[in-house]
């Protein structure tokens, strides 16, 4: 099981606290909204919208260092393009992990 981390953000910020804080702030404000949108789209069952939601979250997954999670999201996004929900459960597990993590940063 992999866990989110701030390695990428730290590396990018290169010791500049304002950049680091800015990126963390964006994750903390945007991720809950994107998660909400995703579940709304799932409820509606509109595949292009779900795909769009997954695509947006995917970038944050990679920024938080979840390499396997990124692959899972990628596969799910690809399946959604084919109107297939395979990978939904694994993707939603990642959402839970990130939700927990961003409370700690």
């Amino acid at each position, binding site marked *: 099981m992999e866990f989110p981390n701030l390695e990428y953000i730290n590396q990018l910020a290169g010791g500049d606290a304002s950049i680091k804080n800015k990126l963390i702030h964006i994750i903390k404000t945007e991720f809950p909204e994107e998660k909400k949108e995703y579940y709304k789209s799932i409820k509606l069952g509109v595949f292009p919208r779900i795909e*769009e939601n997954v695509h947006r979250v995917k970038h944050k997954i990679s920024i938080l260092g979840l390499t396997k999670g990124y692959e899972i999201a990628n596969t799910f996004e690809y399946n959604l393009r084919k109107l297939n929900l395979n990978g939904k459960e694994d993707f939603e597990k990642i959402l839970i992990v990130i939700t927990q993590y961003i409370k700690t940063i």
Partner: protein
Amino acid sequence: MKCIIIDDEKMARVILKTLCNEIQSLEVLEDFPNAIEAIKYLNKNRVDLIFLDIHMPGFNGLDFIRSLKNPPKIILITSDPNFAIEAFEYDFIIDYLLKPLQFDRFKKAIEKSKTKNLTLASNETNSSRKAIENDFYISIDRRLIKIDLPSIYLIEAKGDYIKIKTENKDYIVHSTLKKIEEKLPDSLFLKIHRSFIINLKKIIDIEDNSVLIKKDVIPVSRSKRPELMKRLDLL
């Protein structure tokens, strides 16, 4: 180099700006959450380089590229390289970068954009390149398939797609006749109708306003007929 950033994700824009700040030769003039706002800006301002996200809702990066009249150099930003394939048909696309962006790779792309000037200065024209190349690649279901140009006998427009008929197989590709026409050697191919490009070497016979190629009877536009006749080796 004066540049702009187009990406619907705020996070991506902040990261790009951070990376650009590390390169002295780059000056970020503006960043845009969508392509439409960027087009309005480009109508009034000149830039040297655009960082462009391909996957954006509504008017996406490819739509944006197609809308440009005098495109500057463009570096694509994407989380899926397959989205970048179509865009590489254009000379002004320098490179593509995968999200999340890494500084070393970013620096390489910037270096490439400087080298691209040299390539353009070497005066390599589309026509000379077309004459040299004997094949090209098409993207189907995330695969790149090599097509041997002389094996193509007919290309037909089908809405947003084109059907490429070759000696061995037919292919349906998301593209336009105009785009593929730019890649074909003029010596071999001719657009004889708004929906058809033919390989002149594969013509079996011509009758009134139609051409027989293999088993396909293809209409010839009145305006294209003189050009067709000129290109035939008449006895």
